[in-house]
Structures are given as C-alpha cells and as structure tokens.
C-alpha cells in the first residue's frame, strides 16, 4: 500500500510539472484559442526555463523584454565602431602620409 501511495504521489507531481511547463513554455501554444494580440509587432520575450528534475521545484521563467536587449547589442556596436575608427585612421594615414617611398 505505501508503494501505491508513493507511485500515485510521483505520478501526480509529474503531471503537475508537465502542466506547468505547457502553460509557460510556448507563448504561441498558450495563446491558442484566445484573442490574438492587437499589435502587429509584438515584443519577443526571451523565456528561460530551468530544467527540472525529480524532487526539484520548477523554476519560474524569467522574461526579458526586448528593449533590454538593445543595450547589449548597442554596446557591441560601440566596440566595433571604436575599432573602425582605429582602422580608418590607419587607412587614412596610408594616403595622407605614406610610410614608404613607392
């Protein structure tokens, strides 16, 4: 009997975790059957769900709004533009003040 109760508890837990994952893992699936968003360009959240194992508590998803991605990308552009400035300076110097004689 205790084994049956244990198996039932495990099955219930597994079912609960599956339902939780289905509810948060895919926004498109979650949205099926509901009113579509009015905005033509909807934000694309970055959803991260930690893998759950036996006995673990399903982690709540962390959603990053798309405007939070801008700083990272812009910072990278800033780095590349700084490097470009250096490269352009070298190339410009080749023409204004050639190093060699021919």
């Amino acid at each position: 009997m205790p084994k049956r109760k244990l198996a039932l508890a495990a099955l219930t837990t597994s079912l609960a975790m599956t339902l939780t994952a289905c509810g948060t893992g895919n926004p498109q699936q979650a949205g099926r059957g509901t009113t579509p968003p009015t905005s033509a360009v909807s934000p694309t959240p970055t959803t991260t769900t930690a893998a759950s194992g036996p006995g673990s508590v399903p982690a709540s998803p962390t959603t990053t709004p798309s405007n939070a991605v801008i700083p990272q990308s812009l910072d990278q552009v800033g780095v590349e533009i700084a490097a470009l400035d250096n490269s352009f300076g070298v190339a410009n110097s080749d023409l204004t003040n050639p190093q060699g004689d021919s």
Partner: protein
Amino acid sequence: MRHRSTGQRAARLLAASVVAGMVVIVPVAAFATTTTVTTPPSPGSTTPSSGPTQPSNPLCAPSAFSPAQQYVASALSGRVTQLNSLLSAVGNTANHLTAADQQTLQHDISAVELPGIGALQTQVQQATTCAELRMAARSMVFDYRVYYVMTPQTHLAIVADDETAIEATLGNLETTIASAIDNSADRGKNVSAAQSAFSDLKNEVSAAGNSTNGLADELLAQTPQGFPGNWQVFGAARTSLSNARNDLHAAYNDGRQIRSDLQ
C-alpha cells in the same frame, strides 16, 4: 651627386638629402631607369606627389656600389616588414574581412608580393654591377608597390568590410528596436522621440550601405601596375568610407538615444 667618387661621400650625401627632406627616394628610384622624386603628399591630397617625372640621376657608381647595394637591400627589407604587417592585419580575427576578401589579400601578399620581394633580395645580394641593382630596384618599386598600392588596398578593404559588418549588425538590430518601441508604446510611454531616432537610424544605415556597396571588390581589383591611376580609386574609397563611418556613428547615436528614451 653623380660626381662623388667615394662610397662614404655618396652615403653622406644620401643621408643629407633625406634629412633635408628634399629628395626622399632618389637613391632607390635612381637605380630604376627613371627617377621617382617623392616628397610627402600634403594632408588631404588624393594623389601622391610622385611619379616617373625626371630622368635618372644614378648614384650607383662602381666606387659607391657597396652603399648603394646596402640601401636597396634595406629598402627591400623594409618592404618585407611592411608586407608581414599587412599579412598580420589581414589575419587579425578582430577585423571583419569576408572570407573571400581575406583569401584574396593573403594570396596577393604571401604568394605574390613576399616571394617576389624575397627573390629581389637574393638578386641584390648577388649583384655585382650597378645595372643589376637598378633592375632590382626598379622591379621593387614598379612591380610590387608595397607602400602605394598594397598598403592602402589592404587597410581600406579592412575598413570597408568592417563597416559592412557594422551595417549588418545595426540592420539586424532594427527589428529588436522596433519591437522595443512598440512594447513601450503599448505600456503607454511616449515614444515619438524614439520613433524619430529610429527613422533616422534606418536612413543612416541605408546610406552607409550605399557608400560601401561594392567598395571592397573595387579595392581588391587594384594592382601595382595600375599605379598611379589607382591612387584616385583609393582617394575616392577613402571618401566613401569616411561618409559611411559618419553615418554609422550617427546610427549608433540614434540607437543610444532610443535606448535612453525607452528607459
């Protein structure tokens, strides 16, 4: 100078000429059949102030053969150093050269220029006459154009591909920015300034793309034999790249403005 009778006097005169800045490469080009008299181009000039404009004024006399030989050897060694520097820049993964452009430049530098200059080094070492030195010096200048063609060609091509890469990065970012603006608008935020900056950003990226379109291919098509005509190509490329660089700076500042507005 052709009347100097000893190697020492010739070397002193050579040094004096260089220091005075009057004639930079007479000793090198003098060994060629025509002399290239070079003075540093003025800043902003689109053409080098050199060309085969004067008849040869040979400095290489049998009595001054050794310093002349050393001078040409030194000039060749300097070109090897420069070519290796260019090869290093081409292989630098921090640059955004396309694979094809990188391959083209690596081939030109390592399979054409460096072996050619290396062969001339051997010729100069084995030379026993001024005629042989002249032949090697002429080839060094006219066949390889390390400083006036290979160098600007390589550096400008790197800039062109770097700018193209940044244009792609910003272009990909446009979708994210549009979403971010819409997202903020949905939350009731006033995004009119962000939208205006975004419109400008797209225009700047587009303008940069127009400036750099096809530029790398045009640069890589230049050859040492095309000098001095291709100096105009390099000058025009610099102008286009400068314009694109300004556009990309403006686009970057637009992005920062948008980021600030949405916070």
